[in-house]
């Protein structure tokens, strides 16, 4: 490669760093950063909601918040962490790293990608704007009918929820189509499916889950919205409707959703462990197939959320066995991760510590999951804090640990600077201690009879000590994230540049400068197997030279466009017209903007 190194060439040929450049960007890396920044802010909001919940539960019969506000808090905590925290944080990594790991210049549909982000942001803001009306959603993240029908929830609260989630669904579906096509079609020449990095594989399976599960919740939300808006009886018992249909539709989506949340984290950890063990991922094929198997069976276990509804012994037995079967591929994954570490040369850098913490915590969450896969036992445990403990071990101990690890791992690639190792380790230990102190006692307090979603408890039930411990733990968790923010700010201000490949990476994103140039790869890389960069290094008998910034002249990259933003606005406004009844003028204005956006987009040169 006869190259002219351009030391200070602009990173983006469609340059500019102003607000307009961000609104019109179609660069997957910038959109990834937008996802990450917005999701982190939403995540902090969800965290603050959690801290208020913990403070309220710190003492019996506490009156820090009213019951109504408490119900809004736990509903918004769940909704935020799932749809506005973990999912878009994963989307940040999808956006930034799927194309890089595939050796591609961008995603298959850059403008559709921008559209997804703007729709997501609109939906996220809309749900949170409800706080300003004093009417945040208060029916739980599961929104069980018939509590959420107009008769029992007359306020705007549930309207914000149904409309907001529909908007977020549009964003997720558009993104899922985009990433599905990207993975299938934009793999670098020579990269077979079974050569792809594990993060791409797990993300790919996640997209399939999104594609198949989000339409179901969309239908459920539409039916609930129609009930509330036009007075139909889909979930209204007095008109023959059956609230249990809501539960089936919701959990048909809801259980795959659990894997949508955790599979990308499986992927992140599967990237980090080999790099810091200096050894390839153990049992690559088994990892792929176990992930696919989990996703497939994940569509057949939804009713284990409904054992208490009395489905009858045959359904109970079926869903119980299907649920237990999922433990097998999950176990395979855990053993393979340990197998990856085994025989390696483990470097305890911050990303690796988070990845190891992930495994340790996820084992716990997986085992408590097996404990309530058995309906007779579940009939005692369901809707108690035991379940809260279980899914926080999976989604916090799992997803958040992995995402934090991913942040430390990929930060130098995204921003060209290393996060501070010392602060990173403090962050890790505070998080590990705070997490276990918050959530481990919940197992006990749940088994000792404390139900979920209660705004307070009686001192006679003796839950005070354990709850107080949990509250202390949650404050330590809060502190951990303050350390993380401090680390981000410190890194932001530092001028120390990160090398292109600080960790001796195995995958293609480490073969290009940090942060990458707009076109990522000056020439599309040729791939012959797994761990493409390690392979390249081996061929050269050591390391590869530091990649240089080059001129992107002649590389066609898509032009920035405002059209995705306009179309997203149209989607958002059209659906917002359903808050507090159906407002025809709002729908029409929204549709007009949407059609303008789509037509001008369709006829705009890319």
């Amino acid at each position, binding site marked *: 490669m006869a190259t002219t190194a351009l030391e200070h060439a602009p990173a983006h040929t469609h340059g500019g760093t102003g607000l307009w450049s961000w609104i019109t960007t179609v660069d997957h890396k910038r959109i990834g950063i937008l996802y990450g920044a917005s999701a982190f802010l939403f995540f902090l909001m969800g965290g603050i909601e959690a801290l208020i919940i913990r403070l309220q539960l710190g003492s019996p019969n506490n009156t820090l918040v009213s019951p109504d506000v408490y119900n809004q808090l736990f509903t918004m905590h769940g909704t935020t962490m799932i749809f506005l925290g973990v999912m878009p944080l994963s989307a940040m990594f999808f956006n930034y790293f799927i194309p890089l790991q595939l050796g591609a210049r961008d995603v298959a549909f850059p403008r559709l990608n921008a559209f997804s982000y703007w729709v997501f942001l609109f939906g996220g803001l809309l749900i949170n704007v409800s706080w300003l009306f004093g009417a945040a959603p208060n029916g739980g993240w599961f929104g069980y009918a018939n509590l959420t029908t107009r008769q029992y929830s007359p306020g705007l609260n549930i309207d914000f929820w149904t409309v907001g989630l529909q908007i977020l669904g549009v964003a997720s579906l558009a993104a899922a*189509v985009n990433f599905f096509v990207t993975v299938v079609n934009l793999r*670098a020449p020579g990269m077979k499916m079974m050569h792809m990095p594990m993060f791409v594989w797990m993300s790919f399976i996640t997209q399939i889950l999104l594609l198949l599960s989000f339409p*179901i919740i969309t239908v459920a939300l539409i039916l609930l919205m*129609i009930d509330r808006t*036009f007075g139909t009886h889909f979930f209204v018992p007095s008109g*023959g409707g059956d609230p249990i249909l809501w539960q089936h539709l919701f959990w048909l989506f809801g259980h795959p959703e659990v894997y949508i949340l955790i599979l990308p984290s499986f992927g992140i950890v599967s990237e980090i462990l080999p790099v810091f063990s200096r050894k390839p991922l153990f049992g690559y094929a088994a990892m792929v197939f176990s992930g696919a198997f989990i996703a497939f069976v994940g569509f057949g276990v939804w009713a284990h959320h409904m054992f208490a509804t009395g489905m009858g012994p045959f359904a109970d037995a079926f869903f119980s066995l299907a649920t237990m079967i999922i433990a097998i591929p999950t176990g395979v994954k855990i053993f393979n991760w340990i197998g990856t570490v085994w025989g390696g040369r483990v470097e305890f850098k911050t990303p690796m510590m988070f990845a190891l913490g992930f495994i340790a915590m996820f084992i716990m969450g997986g085992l408590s999951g097996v404990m309530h896969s058995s309906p007779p036992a579940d009939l005692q445990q369901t809707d108690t804090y035991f379940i809260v403990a279980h899914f926080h071990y999976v989604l916090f101990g799992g997803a958040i640990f992995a995402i934090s690890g991913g942040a430390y791992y990929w930060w130098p690639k995204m921003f060209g600077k290393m996060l501070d190792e010392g602060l990173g380790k403090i962050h890790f230990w505070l998080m590990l201690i705070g997490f276990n102190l918050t959530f481990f006692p919940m197992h006990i307090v749940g088994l000792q009879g404390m139900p979920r979603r209660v705004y307070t408890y009686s001192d006679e039930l003796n839950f005070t000590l354990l709850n107080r411990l949990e509250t202390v733990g949650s404050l330590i968790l809060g502190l951990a994230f303050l350390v993380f923010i401090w680390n981000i700010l410190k890194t932001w201000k530092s001028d120390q540049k990160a090398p292109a490949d600080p960790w001796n990476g195995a995958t293609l994103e480490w073969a290009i400068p940090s942060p990458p140039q707009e076109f990522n790869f000056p*020439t599309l890389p040729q791939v012959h197997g797994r761990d493409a960069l390690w392979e390249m290094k081996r061929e050269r008998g050591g390391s590869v030279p530091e990649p240089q910034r080059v001129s992107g002249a002649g590389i066609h990259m898509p032009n920035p466009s405002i059209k995705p933003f306009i179309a997203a606005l149209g989607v958002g406004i059209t659906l917002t017209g359903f808050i507090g009844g159906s407002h025809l003028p709002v729908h029409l204005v929204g549709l007009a903007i949407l059609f303008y956006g789509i*037509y001008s987009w369709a006829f705009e040169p890319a």
Partner: protein
Amino acid sequence: MADTAHAHADDHHYTATGIDNRKLAIWTFIGSECMFFASLIGTYLVYKGRDIVGPKPHAEWMLNGAPQEQMLEIPLVTFGTALLLFSSFFIVLALNGAQRGNRKQLIGWLIATIFCGVFFVGMQVYEFSHFLHRGMGYTTNLFSSTFYTLTGFHGTHVTLGLIWLISVLVVALRGKLPPEKALNLEIAALYWHFVDVVWIVIFPVVYLIR
């Protein structure tokens, strides 16, 4: 490096499978849409026959003590179904015309397709207004709500498909759909076929199975 980059300037058309991105995307989207309609059809089936009051789709029902005829009018909808099926055939011919550069064939069959679609939507509008006239409102009972929701969402899909096809027709009439851009019609046609296939499921579920 600039030279090397230039040599690959056209590789934004590169795909690992050789399938065009947009074609794969529409297939993916159709897969997702299947779950959307499966959920609506599932809801319809779950609530079938669970109405507390009339009207009923397939049987006589009572209103103020007077017997009423069954709601569904099968002959009319069968005709609409047939037209929708034919339109799938027509659009194949139109696509064939587009790919071979036969402008007459393209535009003629595309207009025929659109005509069938418009008739189908017109039939549905007639059916809905007729039902409303006979006293079956959206909220009357579970049958009416599930029926209007399921067929209404399908009708909306047909309408969006029509808008898409008409847009393609306008482009074709302006002479901007040469054979190398036939894919622009092909992806619209894939969507159109899907909408037809969904109706082939909805039609027996709603109109034929008692």
